[in-house]
């Protein structure tokens, strides 16, 4: 039993170290000046931002609107019974902007783009496209990993902020239509509850989740060796590990705020 726990601990540590190495190398590739492959890398980056960020806007809009509607409906009907009707704004800030906005955005990005990255890189490994790139002197880290990572981090950050705004808008729609809370009162309750820390927290979470998801999905995609049957296996692992790591990061970032 102790041996099993020890082995799992070492495996977990090795895994996190590999992710950290991948991430660090991508950051170095981003900041170290080189003219080599700049244009091609930029093309890959733009494609990644379009796919992960721009193409995800419709589904993010729908989910954010619905979430805003659900939360304000619940808060707007339950809180007045407890004499806390004025806390609707605080509820939106705490649940949507601080917590659910970054988390649900991360889940959307994992489901849409993280799995796509893991699958694409897995297929590239099996068909030896990755080896062919190495043989052409093209850096896998600079050409394959870094633009995907940067694209995903930027997209995640923007989508998280967008999600928060749309969810608040969805909340207002239901507040106005069903709960007859006037616009100025709704906005006032949110602006009173919202602090710079909340905005910073949502941004930090967006950046952290984006980095974690991108590193995990690239790692698992490139871990595929020789068979197409490994691709869905690694993609599933990438998805599950991304969810778990995002929740862990969320705990690490959130809990100290309330201590």
């Amino acid at each position, binding site marked *: 039993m102790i041996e099993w726990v020890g082995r799992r601990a070492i495996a977990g540590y090795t895994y996190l170290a590999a992710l950290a190495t991948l991430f660090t190398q991508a950051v170095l590739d981003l900041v170290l000046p080189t*003219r080599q492959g*700049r244009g091609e890398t930029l093309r890959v980056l733009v494609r990644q931002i379009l796919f992960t960020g721009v193409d995800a806007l419709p589904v993010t809009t729908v989910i954010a609107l619905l979430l805003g509607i659900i939360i304000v409906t619940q808060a707007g009907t339950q809180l007045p019974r407890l004499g806390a009707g004025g806390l609707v704004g605080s509820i939106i800030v705490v649940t949507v902007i601080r917590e659910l906005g970054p988390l649900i955005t991360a889940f959307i990005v994992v489901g849409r783009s993280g799995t796509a990255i893991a699958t694409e890189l897995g297929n590239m490994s099996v068909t030896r*496209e990755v*080896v*062919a790139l190495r*043989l*052409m002197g*093209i850096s896998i880290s600079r*050409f394959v990993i870094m633009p995907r990572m940067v694209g995903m981090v930027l997209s995640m950050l923007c989508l998280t902020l967008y999600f928060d705004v749309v969810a608040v808008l969805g909340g207002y729609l239901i507040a106005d239509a069903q709960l007859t809370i006037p616009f100025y009162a709704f906005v006032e309750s949110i602006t009173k509850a919202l602090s710079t820390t909340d905005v910073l927290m949502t941004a930090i979470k967006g950046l952290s989740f984006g980095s974690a998801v991108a590193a995990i999905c690239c790692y698992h995609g490139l871990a595929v060796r020789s068979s197409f049957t490994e691709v869905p296996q690694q993609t599933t692992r990438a998805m599950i590990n991304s969810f778990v790591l995002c929740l862990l990061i969320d705990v690490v970032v959130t809990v100290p705020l309330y201590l």
Partner: protein
Amino acid sequence: MNEAALVLEQIRTPMAGSPHVLDVNLRIAAGEFVALVGPSRSGKSLVIELAAGLVRPEAGRVVLLGHEWNDTQESEQTPVRLRVGTVLQQPGLLSNMTLFHNVLLPLRYHHGAMPERSREQAVMAQLDRLGVAPMRDRFPAELNQGEVRRAAIARALILDPAVLLLDDPVAGLDAEMVLVLKACIEARRAHHPLTVVAALRTFSPFIEAADRLVVLRDGRVVADGDRHAVAGAVPESLRRYVQ
């Protein structure tokens, strides 16, 4: 003797899927065209992968263009890789790029300062030489095996390499295209110093272009020399690979 372009010295390394061990000593001079021939699982592809620095031998050393693979990190290999064109059995064309962009990629990546028009002209000339220019806008999945292979060879030649490593370059090529490929390599060698190491599993006219044949079986060199010398030296069972 010319300076060596490729040296495989005292190489001993296991061969995947075979009980045998690759055990070779090879010295290939600059500008030489060497054909590695022999049956499947004789170690030809492994020699190409060793030469390309994709596999590290258990014992011995591999020196390509004066650069010893064992001593260098991945990040330091780029200068050598730019002087070596390699096409493996699975050519590895990028599936999300057209044939044209596949061949253009190394130029765009490594020669960012070159005008785009010059790069495109160089790519079209290369595709034309190998007879795949009409397929320039097709994706690899839309091409047949021979077309993919020729496109991969075009990509390997686009940076004007000093060494060309080819694993089964005639696989999937019809008889006419084998001659086109042979003519392309010969023309290139006539104008530029180019060392060619090609692994071939069947006899084809492509072998006629080789200066030297190395016959492998079960991981060992059975015969090494020009075509006529080798034909006389190999056992009857291997003669069909050289004649």
